[in-house]
């Protein structure tokens, strides 16, 4: 049976340009500019944000890549775990805040 999310497949990311080279080049240039340089945010802050997004989006490739990136930018496991908690609490909050919509509809339905 074929396996999904093989860690070795991360190396093939560059191959997304095989059928749309110019678009892939645009993407990787943008990607490198956003994540690979210090700007208003440091590379470490960006790596921690990316780690949080990786968890929220449940991407194993990104989790591996940004765990390493966080370490290579001097972050420590406490900071990394806090970033994951930010992702977790945002997802919980996003779920919970939808209960306002539920309440609104309840109020419409209930006599």
């Amino acid at each position, binding site marked *: 049976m074929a396996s999904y999310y093989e860690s070795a497949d991360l190396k093939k990311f560059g191959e997304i340009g095989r059928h749309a080279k110019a678009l892939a080049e645009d993407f990787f240039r943008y990607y490198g500019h956003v994540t690979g340089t210090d700007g208003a945010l440091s590379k470490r802050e960006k790596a921690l944000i990316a780690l949080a997004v990786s968890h929220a989006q449940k991407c194993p490739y990104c989790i591996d890549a940004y765990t390493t990136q966080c370490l290579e930018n001097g972050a*420590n496991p406490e900071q990394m775990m806090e970033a994951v908690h930010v992702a977790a609490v945002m997802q919980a909050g996003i779920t919970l805040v939808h209960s306002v919509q539920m309440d609104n509809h309840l109020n419409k339905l209930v006599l």
Partner: protein
Amino acid sequence: MKYDFEALLRDRGVELPPLSIDTLQVNITKLCNQQCRHCHVDASPARREMMSAEGIAKCLEILERNPRIGTLDITGGAPELHPGFDGFVERATALGKHVIVRHNLTVQLDGHPQTGESKEYLPQFFARHCVEVVSSLPYYQQYFTDAQRGAGVFGKSIEAMRRLNAVGYGVESSGLTLNLVYNPVGPYLPAAQAALEADYKRELKAKFGLSFNRLYTLTNMPINRFRLHLEKTGQLEAYLDKLASAFNPSAAEGVMCRSLISVGWDGRIYDCDFNQMLELSAVSRGGRPLSIFDFDFDAALGRRIVFGEHCLGCTAGAGSSCGGATA
């Protein structure tokens, strides 16, 4: 060969002949009170290799006869465990040489692992001879430090730093230099040196009241004990790929083998401490292995540096040397 460092240099048009011999780095023993998981020397409390008294005398003679070699960099193992260590430092400083000691901090508290001899006098001894102290502390927290260097090492390192600070090391205007060394705790590249130094200074001051001068970031070399770990965990190829893809010609220009020679416990000369551990002897242009016992400055300066796959470690990213990043 997949990782051919010399071919990489040729492809990138980089030439790296020796520039000078400013520093004589001497590895006087492989004995250590610690057994770190990344150690390229494979040092441990069980090692017995020691430089002879004759070898130390020869190193001092080389320092005396060659004023262009201004620095003696003593390493190990834990060099303080060598019975001739104190005399070596005293005589080299008496010659007016700048002396660096690669001091692992914990030896102050652990003492000699075979004889039990106390090493608590070291801070005062270092201060008396104005030795530059360079000490490994893989992170400003316990987790990474103990993972790399052994359980309890972080706590002992903090206490040892406190004792060094107490005699003036790392304290502004004291003239006594304490530099720290960061190594990644696994197969990844070090963070940017300046930013990490700022983190270390802030955290060590806030949490422990400690100070130091500079932080040197070093890359782990894929040799010996660390290589074995990479092989066992199936990470060697990925690590070598990472180092090769991060090759930086500017970092390569500043590699330490261009300005120092490394002496082994038996007197043989190498281009660096890593070549020493791989037993890749430095050779003269005539093909003669170099040794302290028939040392010739010009022959050593005229040598062709021996490179290998492991050199990818010193040339990746911001570079790595005994003095930290090179680019």
